């Protein structure tokens, strides 16, 4: 039975069983992943998997269930679970299943040419990169991971209001981590590269970047713990933005979990900062022409010149606030209920180069890597205290790598303290992106 037919049967039986409205969301993914160790293929993985969920209105409440066993028996399981789960919810929320947007953008997220690249070609590419990294410098002792991943995903959303949408995407991601040793000093540096254009991969440039990422940290020095002006490099900046992304969700605001609640129209950041979400960005791998409940996605300014324009809404939060959905219903997978999150979400790049940011500081710290974000940040208060790696800047030049540090501050204050933004926009696989920027100061503690 085709999935379209299965979706139809499920919807029909759901309505017959007493759900007033229903929606079926289906996802199917194929992937290939390989890792190398000392020139040899160490692991090789392929997959073909997926599942579907049923969301439906029962006694005015929205129940939810999913399965990965797509067979006739699962139809009864899904309908029973949707009912039981609707029953346990508290207030009816006056929800409905969407009838569809008037128009949908037609961006493509799928590259046929990438799909056509054979597995041996992908392995050869990774082998070439690994060899180049190992030959780059005698201080390179190993790669603690050297991974290539390719995926292709299909999604389909169908509901009892005759809405039927589909989406197809693919992408390729390289994860490389180089380990270097000099005397007793052992350092690792990781590097990630993603693309939808296999033939654009520059093996030499990738190998160089991955090697330098670790080598640059040899010869680390201690600097006094103090407050310093900080340059957050694009990748560290994108990680931090991504961690605090929930503050832009109207769902969090409505639950009193975002200090941006009610701040629309107010200055919440430095006036050089603009924050944008778009359904499609050529540099990013994520995105889609519709959101998790089928609403058409569109470009949206979240912060313009420091002023908060809107929070991110799905249909439920928009209804509560008496506005339109901004097309940010998020469905991480069929296993999750709907939440609110953007697809591609990034700080607008400025004009300067990363180098000119460095040259502009008499003394400061360039942060290239953050860790412990999941535990050292509080998205409600905005406070963060996280481990960091980076470099000491003196007289406009990088003076030395710095021993393991922590940086601490508050994200809401940081937004206001951004003093210069460069042009080097960088995206994480999640679609969250940022250029590098200077923050007036943060507390730095050095080991």
């Amino acid at each position: 039975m085709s999935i379209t037919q299965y979706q139809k049967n499920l919807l029909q039986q759901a309505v017959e069983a007493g759900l007033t409205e229903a929606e079926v969301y289906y996802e199917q993914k194929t992937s290939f992943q390989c890792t190398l160790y000392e020139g040899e293929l160490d692991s090789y993985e392929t997959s073909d998997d997926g599942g579907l969920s049923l969301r439906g209105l029962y006694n005015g409440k929205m129940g939810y269930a999913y399965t990965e066993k797509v067979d006739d028996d699962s139809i009864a399981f899904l309908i029973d679970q949707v009912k039981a789960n609707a029953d346990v919810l508290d207030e009816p929320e006056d929800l409905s299943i969407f009838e569809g947007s008037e128009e949908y953008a037609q961006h493509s997220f799928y590259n046929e040419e990438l799909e056509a690249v054979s597995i041996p070609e992908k392995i050869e590419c990774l082998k070439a990169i690994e060899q180049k990294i190992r030959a780059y410098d005698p201080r390179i002792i190993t790669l603690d991971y050297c991974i290539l991943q390719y995926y292709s995903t299909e999604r389909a959303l169908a509901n009892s209001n005759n809405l039927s949408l589909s989406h197809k995407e693919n992408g390729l991601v390289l994860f490389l981590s180089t380990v270097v040793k000099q005397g007793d000093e052992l350092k690792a540096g990781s590097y990630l590269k993603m693309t939808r254009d296999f033939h654009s991969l520059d093996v030499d440039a990738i190998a160089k970047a991955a090697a330098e990422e670790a080598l640059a940290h040899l010869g680390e020095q201690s600097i006094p713990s103090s407050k310093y002006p900080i340059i957050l490099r694009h990748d560290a900046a994108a990680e931090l933005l991504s961690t605090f992304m929930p503050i832009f969700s109207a769902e969090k605001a409505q639950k009193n979990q975002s200090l941006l609640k009610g701040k629309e129209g107010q200055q919440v950041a430095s006036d050089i900062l603009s924050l944008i979400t778009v359904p499609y960005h050529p540099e990013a791998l994520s995105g889609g022409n519709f959101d998790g409940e089928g609403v058409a996605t569109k470009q949206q300014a979240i912060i313009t010149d420091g002023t908060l324009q809107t929070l991110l809404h799905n249909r439920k939060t928009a209804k509560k606030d008496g506005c339109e959905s901004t097309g940010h219903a998020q469905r991480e997978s069929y296993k999750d209920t709907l939440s609110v999150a953007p697809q591609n979400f990034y700080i607008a790049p400025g004009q300067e180069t990363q180098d000119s940011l460095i040259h502009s500081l008499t003394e400061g710290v360039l942060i290239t890597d953050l860790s412990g974000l999941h535990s050292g940040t509080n998205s409600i208060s905005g406070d963060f205290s996280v481990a960091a790696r980076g470099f000491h800047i003196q007289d406009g030049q990088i003076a030395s790598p710095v021993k393991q540090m922590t940086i601490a501050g508050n994200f809401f204050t940081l937004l206001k303290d951004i003093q210069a933004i460069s042009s080097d926009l960088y995206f994480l696989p999640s679609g969250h992106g940022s250029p590098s920027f200077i923050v007036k100061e943060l507390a730095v503690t050095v080991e």
Partner: protein
Amino acid sequence: MIKQSIIENVLEAALATGGDFSEIFIEDKYANEFVLQSGQIDQSIAGRDFGIGIRIFSGLQSIYTYTNDFSEEGLLAAAKRAALAIKGGASGTIHPLHKEMVTPIHQILRMPNTVEHSRKTAIMRQADSIARNYDPRISQVFVRYLDEQQNVLIANSEGKFVEDTRIYSRLSMRATAEEGTEVQTGFYGPGAHAGFEFIERLDLNHYAGEAARIAVTMLHADECPSGKFPVIIDNEFGGVIFHEACGHGLEATAVAKNNSVFANRIGERVAPEIVTYIDDGTLPNEWGSLNIDDEGEKTRRNVLIENGILKGYLIDKFNARRMNAQPTGSSRRQSYRFNPTSRMTNTFIAPGTSTPADIIASTEYGIYAKYMGGGQVSPSTGDYNFAVMEAYIVKDGKIERPVRGATLIGNGAKTLQLVDRVGNNLAHGAGMCGSLSGSLPVNVGQPMIRVSEITVGGTKGE
């Protein structure tokens, strides 16, 4: 879950191109999750995860494939496709499957799926009300209830054939306290490899009360000073620091490839004599416990460090080949979507002789970390970082004022050397551990520990 003849055919097809070992892992999991926020049950999810992983070894190469296609043709096709990654060599032999009975060490008294949803949500409401009534400054309470029944079937070309059912129950509580512009949160999330009896017996006054107390206490905490201090880490979830700082470095995943500071050091002193570090998957009903690991090996008690001497590693079947060692019942995966590897179960520091009161009384100036947040480590370098959820300054042998924003950073191997007190009050805490083979329930535990010096990052400066 699937006919034995199909399993045999799949194991055989997987070896057709020269592999020397094949394995099938079938998972059929039912999960329920409820979320209470703003005093209301606002999310309820039920689902069934179902899929099959097929693994093939060819020397030091591991091939893994997974699918939800449970038809015989689908599985055979997946096995054959995976086998294509192997180029030649003599195929291994298939031994006849021999069904092994699992002796359940972890008694389940009340299967979660026999309990009404309303009974589960009633307990969530009770936790919510305890946290709210703790203090008028508690502005928000988030309660999450989770139960899972994971049925697994593991069979391999060596003739292993074993089935097991794992039951998990967990209740997590996060309280938010607000006053003026200050917002702080506190968290407690007990969990067990047990049925609904675990949730019913939970001392909600304690757990929900603690989540609320932490949030309120931290409202008026000073900013944490930064610098190098003696740090006293309390028992139970405090053990997360050694989970990150040395547990991950003792996993074969890192050791086999020499990507760990502990590689090739068995028999060496890696810690003071007062430190004994154990991973034990057999502790009855503990959150990280299992009857069998995800390769079908019985879990066991693995002494990793004994009186400061490195005794062993946590080893899975694949890395055992590279290390020329035996598996230790430590191979785990989040689901059929993950190629299994060596992971921790319940890891803890064995109790010592100091009393908590003595440890604090003998500290002139330092930080007392009462509840830890999460952390992470780079196994190849051993550099770790941690957030402390509730911390205090200790001065002249007394716990003084609370401080917030404390982050601990350092190097695992070095921190281990600096343990100078081990308390007598061992307790375990439940957490989730994320690594190569996914996110897994693990226990971290310890008695109260003192480390003579850790770098503390804070907002206040020195």
